[in-house]
């Protein structure tokens, strides 16, 4: 039990920092931020808690609760993708993950998902143009008021070319 837990924990913890740096790196902050996990009870980790900490670039150590809405979203996605690296599901479905993100962070998250789409498939629901510009395919959903039913239309962007 100790071994299987620590195997998961160590792998996620190692990947977390790399992924969080990929998500927070910019020309102004080439090193990106820092994110790590820590154990309350290292001997019997499954009995204690796992603490998660993320520090955006240029910010010194602070309590996660003080992070802004957008900063929390980026930290959460870092953890999500790190957990996925240990237990890769074949696809992700994400519903308006970009709601709290400013345009710079939307672009960073979008680029990350696009860059990893060879490893795992992503289906992203979004209201922002950025996501549909970078996707390989679009599923447009509208409401047919006569029947009160949803209708969908799919567009293969690879076939259309990056016009």
């Amino acid at each position, binding site marked *: 039990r100790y071994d299987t837990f620590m195997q*998961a924990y160590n792998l996620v913890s190692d990947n977390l920092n790399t992924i969080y740096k990929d998500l927070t790196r910019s020309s102004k902050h080439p090193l990106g931020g820092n994110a790590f996990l820590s154990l309350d009870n290292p001997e019997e980790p499954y009995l204690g808690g796992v603490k998660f900490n993320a520090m955006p670039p240029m910010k010194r150590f602070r309590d996660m609760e003080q992070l802004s809405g957008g900063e929390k979203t980026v930290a959460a996605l870092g953890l999500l993708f790190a957990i996925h690296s240990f237990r890769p599901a074949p696809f992700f479905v994400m519903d308006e993950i970009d709601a709290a993100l400013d345009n710079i962070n939307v672009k960073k998250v979008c680029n990350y998902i696009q860059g990893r789409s060879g490893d795992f498939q992503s289906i992203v*629901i979004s209201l922002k143009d950025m996501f549909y510009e970078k996707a390989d395919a679009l599923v447009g959903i509208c409401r047919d008021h006569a029947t009160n*039913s949803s209708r969908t239309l799919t567009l293969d962007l690879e076939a259309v070319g990056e016009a």
Partner: protein
Amino acid sequence: GRLIRIEAENFKSYAGTQIIGPFKDFTAVIGPNGAGKSNLMDAISFVLGVQSKHLRSTKLSDLVFRADGAVPSSRRAMVKVVYMVGEGEEVGGQEAGDEVHFSRVISAGGASSYRLNDKEVTWESYEKRLRSIGVLVKARNFLVFQGDVESIASKSPKELTQLFEQIS
């Protein structure tokens, strides 16, 4: 492997039988407020065995399409996910390029049943096949519902330990 398409029948706001897809490596789902985008995610979650309380509903019959808001027009609803087996992957005897059909049906009586390649199976063997392609329904580590993303960063240490136990 990859998710190729979804087939929905009278599920939430999707009346009749509709085929949604094909999905590519990176697919964006767009549309105005209230169109049915989150309902599509609910459809994918439903067919993978997620409980109706995570699908903004209290009972399974809420998930059946209702035209006028009160009475469900049909008593039955179904969602099917078509999955293509990936390179170097083997799923229940099926090889790369084969299609695996996972489907879940709500009967007129309001009960739900599971099918693998259109043959009815128990939840245990259905879940086992999902686990073999890396889909851990209990951990739900591959689904982010609307409004939930920030809460992942605010999970308590206890909740994170629990998540680690579910994935290890």
